[in-house]
């Protein structure tokens, strides 16, 4: 893949937090490289504390990296804030806004008039499984609906690249499976570029075009695997031999990362992405 054609290119990204009051420095990220092409769905899997949040905060423009580059469409922007759609782990719906007003938050901050924003949002309510709940408070929604509302808010903010931080992490297994299938359907229609973080290898393989495995402390990429399964995918695919083989391949380094031991595989990271 050519760097110029990438939606997002991350090169040699490192982040070290200064230890406060006697504590040593903490290296959250070390020499991380990630590439995402236009319209691709890319996942990062890794254990807790592998620096995924730091990575997301850097890409979203909330945190400045210690070194390395974040390129959008091949250029290094002066300001990343406001360029990237960001969906935090918790739904972060405002309890004082109706579901509809929550989803239009990004449009509102972009200066879109309320009426127009509402119209734009309402057109998507059916597809996001929220029809009939426009005027409800978020507290009245189920866990899955809250996540879909948060996703719609991120979609409507209109960024070409979206960062989704474990959006289904808190859902029960059944809801989770439904949500994955639904997300694939929605993504298939719009083909927005998505960077997705999860703990769940199966979820990563099922959804993605490419999966990066990160290890913890300091967080770095230890493996990158292209997922060449046909699209559109249905949930049956998770039983296929190809799927299981991929899963197997990703699980090994991930288990090593969880144990904290280093996984050595002759620097497989960059080549496999090409």
């Amino acid at each position, binding site marked *: 893949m050519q760097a110029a054609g990438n939606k997002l290119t991350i090169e040699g990204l490192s982040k070290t937090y200064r230890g406060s009051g006697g504590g040593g420095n903490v290296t959250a990220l070390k020499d991380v490289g990630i590439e995402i092409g236009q319209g691709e769905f890319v996942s990062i899997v890794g254990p807790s504390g592998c620096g995924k949040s730091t990575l997301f*905060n850097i890409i*979203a*423009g*909330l945190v400045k990296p210690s070194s390395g580059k974040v390129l959008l469409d091949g250029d290094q922007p002066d300001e990343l*804030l*406001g360029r*990237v*759609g*960001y969906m*935090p*782990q*918790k739904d*972060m719906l*405002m*309890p*004082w*806004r109706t579901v509809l007003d929550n989803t239009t*938050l*990004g449009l509102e*901050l*972009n200066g879109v008039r309320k009426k127009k924003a509402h119209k734009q949002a309402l057109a998507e309510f059916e597809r996001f*499984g929220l*029809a009939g*709940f426009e005027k409800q*408070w*978020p*507290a*009245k*929604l*189920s866990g*899955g*609906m809250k996540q879909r509302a948060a996703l719609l808010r991120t979609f409507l*903010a209109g960024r070409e690249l979206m960062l989704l931080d474990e959006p289904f992490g808190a859902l029960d297994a059944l*809801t989770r499976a*439904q*949500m994955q299938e*639904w997300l694939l359907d929605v993504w298939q229609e719009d083909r927005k570029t998505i960077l997705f973080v999860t703990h769940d290898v199966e979820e990563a393989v099922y959804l993605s075009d490419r999966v990066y495995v990160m290890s913890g402390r300091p967080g770095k990429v230890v493996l990158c695997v292209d997922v060449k399964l046909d699209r559109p995918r249905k949930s049956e695919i998770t039983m296929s031999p190809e799927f299981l083989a991929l899963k197997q391949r990703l699980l090994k380094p991930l288990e090593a990362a969880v144990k904290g031991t280093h996984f050595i595989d002759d620097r497989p990271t960059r080549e496999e992405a090409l």
Partner: protein
Amino acid sequence: MLKRGSRGRNIAERVLPPLLFAVFVLTVWQLYVVLGDVKESTLPKPTEVVTSIWDNRQLLWDNAWVTIKEILIGYAAAIVIGVGIAVLIRSSRRIERAVYPWLVVSQMVPIPAIAPILVIWTGFDLRPKVMVIALVSFFPIAVNTIDGLRAADPELLNLLKTLKANAWQRFRKAQLPAALPFMFSGLKVAAAFSVIGAVFAEWVGASDGLGYLILVLNNQTATTDMFAVIVVLASIGIGLFLIVSLIERLLLPWYYESREVESEGLELEPEEIR
């Protein structure tokens, strides 16, 4: 969906038990005085108190009006001071460190003890009463509002940043609405404090008002009439509390309706995926 029809039953369930309890207590009281042959100057019968209120309605009303005026002005001043201090303290760490301890110390000073000094400074008119009421009531408002202004999730503020919200928009759209339920808790406590403050202030120096009336009646050992005044004072406190609660309900419908969902154990199960 919540059933609308259950609302009327709800109110009955909420109002009836305390009402029945009050009737029970008053009956026991009445029986105790009648059967125990208690002197009226020690403890009057509830029926005698009611009669006294009716007989003295003009006197009570004239003095109640004086006290209500003091309370309303003092309470309004407490809101301005309390919210003002809270916003000031939350606006900068340095101000918070400098001011917060003194805010607590201000409550260690027994306000009734400094009331006479206020009278020396300002005379016998409305001013010292308003000052005492404001001094005893601003604290719960300030402390609760300070907590409230901390209540907005930092992740939500980050999300707003990625949507290009400036500091004012983050305050207006997240921090302020998140603070309001806390602020109203403080306002309700302050409503009770303000009545206590008014009585103290009138004891120190006044020529009318319900607190003053109690002093006069005490000198005459008119116990029944004193009870009548106490009932009116309590009614003022209850009235103020109810008005504040009503404003809260009108201003923060989401807060109550969201809590209803939680306390009812989510009786609605919206369809997961359509």
